[in-house]
């Protein structure tokens, strides 16, 4: 580890992000927890300070506010040492709700894609400059193929995947790295409202998987691993068959 290391966590109130922040804090990293719910983020920071003696601070950040990205980049630039960024931000309203009110689509795309891109694009030069650091971008298996149930969400995640792939290409030239994470079913608040799903893993298990992959500088991580094979099969289904399926 460099003299100091900071993990900037976007969407830090999500349960995977919480577990991930604990792993980073246990490793001795400083934390900047970015999100919208100040009271909850303060609690999360208190937890990291009490459990691990970590230096943890709150940064109020809304992916739909372009000004927040600029402010975040300034705050990041002021920190010494290695900068890492993990993006757990995202939202997933019901596809049917978007069908009723198409204006919702813009918000989903901002949370999952455009807002995140504008933040990462301001942070990327810092990682290049310092010649190290890792970006962890949490996408979704839903981004591998548009499905009837979640295709606006899936499309925003697919856009994010493509962005991360390009960012990885760019950062690799300067010694930094980007990891694309595609979680399957994780037992989070996002999946709580849906029917019980098979093959569900805990947020802690997903976070441990992601941290391991980030340290190894893996390029793309499916978590749990077998989703790589499931999505491999899903992608092989010919479009003329796929268009009739509704899963």
């Amino acid at each position, binding site marked *: 580890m460099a003299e100091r290391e900071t993990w900037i966590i976007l969407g830090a109130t999500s349960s995977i992000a919480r577990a991930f922040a604990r792993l980073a804090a246990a490793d001795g990293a400083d934390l900047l927890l970015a999100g919208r*719910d100040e*009271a*909850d983020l303060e609690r999360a920071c*208190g937890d990291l300070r*009490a459990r691990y003696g970590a230096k943890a601070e709150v940064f109020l950040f809304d992916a739909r506010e372009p000004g927040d990205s600029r402010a975040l980049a300034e705050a990041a630039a002021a920190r010494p040492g290695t900068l890492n960024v993990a993006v757990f931000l995202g939202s997933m309203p019901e596809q049917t709700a978007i069908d009723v009110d198409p204006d919702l689509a813009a918000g989903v795309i901002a949370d999952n894609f455009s807002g995140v891109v504008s933040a990462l694009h301001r942070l990327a030069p810092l990682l290049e400059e310092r010649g190290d650091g890792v970006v962890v971008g949490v996408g979704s298996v839903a981004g591998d193929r548009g499905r009837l149930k979640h295709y606006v969400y899936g499309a925003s995640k697919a856009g994010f995947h493509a962005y991360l792939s390009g960012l990885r290409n760019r950062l690799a030239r300067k010694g930094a790295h980007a990891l694309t994470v595609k979680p399957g079913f994780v037992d989070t608040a996002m999946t709580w409202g849906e029917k*019980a799903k098979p093959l569900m893993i805990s947020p802690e298990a997903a976070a441990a998987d992601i941290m391991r992959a980030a340290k190894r500088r893996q390029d793309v991580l499916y978590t749990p691993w077998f989703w790589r094979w499931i999505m491999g099969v899903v992608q092989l289904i010919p479009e003329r068959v796929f268009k009739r399926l509704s899963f």
Partner: protein
Amino acid sequence: MTVWRDAALTGWGRALRASTRAARPERANQLIEALDAAGPSLCLYGAGRSYGDAALNSGGATVITSRLDRVLAFDEETGEIEVEPGAAIGGLLRDFGPRGWAPPVAPGTGFVTVAGAIANDVHGKNHHADGSFGQHVTQITLRTGGGETLTLQPEDEAFRATVGGVGLTGAILSARLRMRPIAGDKAFVRERRMPSLDAFIEAFTESDRRYSVGWVDAAATGATLGRGILEEGESTGEPSRERARRARAIPFDAPPFLLSASVVRAFNAAYYARIPKDGRTRVRPLSAFLFPLDALADWNRLYGKRGFHQFQCVVPPDATESLRAILAEAAGSGLASPLAVLKRLGPGSAGMLSFPMEGWTLTVDFPAAQASADLIGRLGATALDAGGRVYLAKDALLPPSAVPRMHPELDAFRAVCDRLDPEGRMTSDMARRLRIRRAADG
């Protein structure tokens, strides 16, 4: 907005289940929102480690608190800590043990939440030395069934009703407790064979170690009745050669022959013989010593699809003949599983309905079946006749008449519940089965 979903929850024994409307908030404000929106029938569920129906609420609402697990404050000087209700005991040991602080009392599994530990006033292997969990709690912030937020101190009646009150006074929003300084997060463990119940009783009476617990061969009868292994421990900073392991999972429900009498007898004989005649001592991770079963995730699946009942009673110190009778009946039944535990309890307890009292506590698992239920009924009756108690956190089978016999402060408890929760929202399958809130309620 609270997200409710229809869920089938089970007790840890998996013999009882409940269809309920469940919410699992992740933030403090969402917890209050869920509690307020839960409707007229509300139950709290933590890590799901109560064996029977203490945390089940068929047909009503259940708020799961396990995701609220943050440490809110920690004082490095005094060891006082404030946590959200879902913080797990094992996680506190993992994170604070290396800095010289341990949860004051640890039950047999580290998955238990702080709120669950308070609601059941749990005890651990150090009960004779340090008392029950509730005795180390200095403050509870409670959202009552009536929708008020109260800050409770140990001298308050409502505090004594909440500790051990199986969730019936309201929801714990946060709690302060004193952690205990430890020499290190390892344990110096001595294991000795105990050839009989008398040997056990004598050794427990003489033991001066902080932690002590006995594994009992509940299949042994006659002259070897009550034989087992006594484990005594002290925390230490010495290094251990044993590494903290990741839990292994039990991937499927085990077939029933695994717990047939002959298999259990053979297993127990080997388990007993594995300790050398003159005993052994070793240094182990404190967590491995305190939470032996946590090395197997979902070990409750070992009992198969039908699940199991865990029977735990306590009898007064001089009721050793009742203890012997209970053990003899369990051993003679051929139903007992290898998991049987004997321990000497001290007098410490902190709540009106607390389980711990000075004496001998015996725990035995039985596969769920009618024969087991009948047997457990008889064992419980023997314990109660001896002036003892059965542990509500484990129970699925007691009759309502048992509660006033076990808990002389029941009327005071009911009065506090009526004051904090006048509409009677706080409930559970157990509360209804045992008529804990009032003698006549259905």
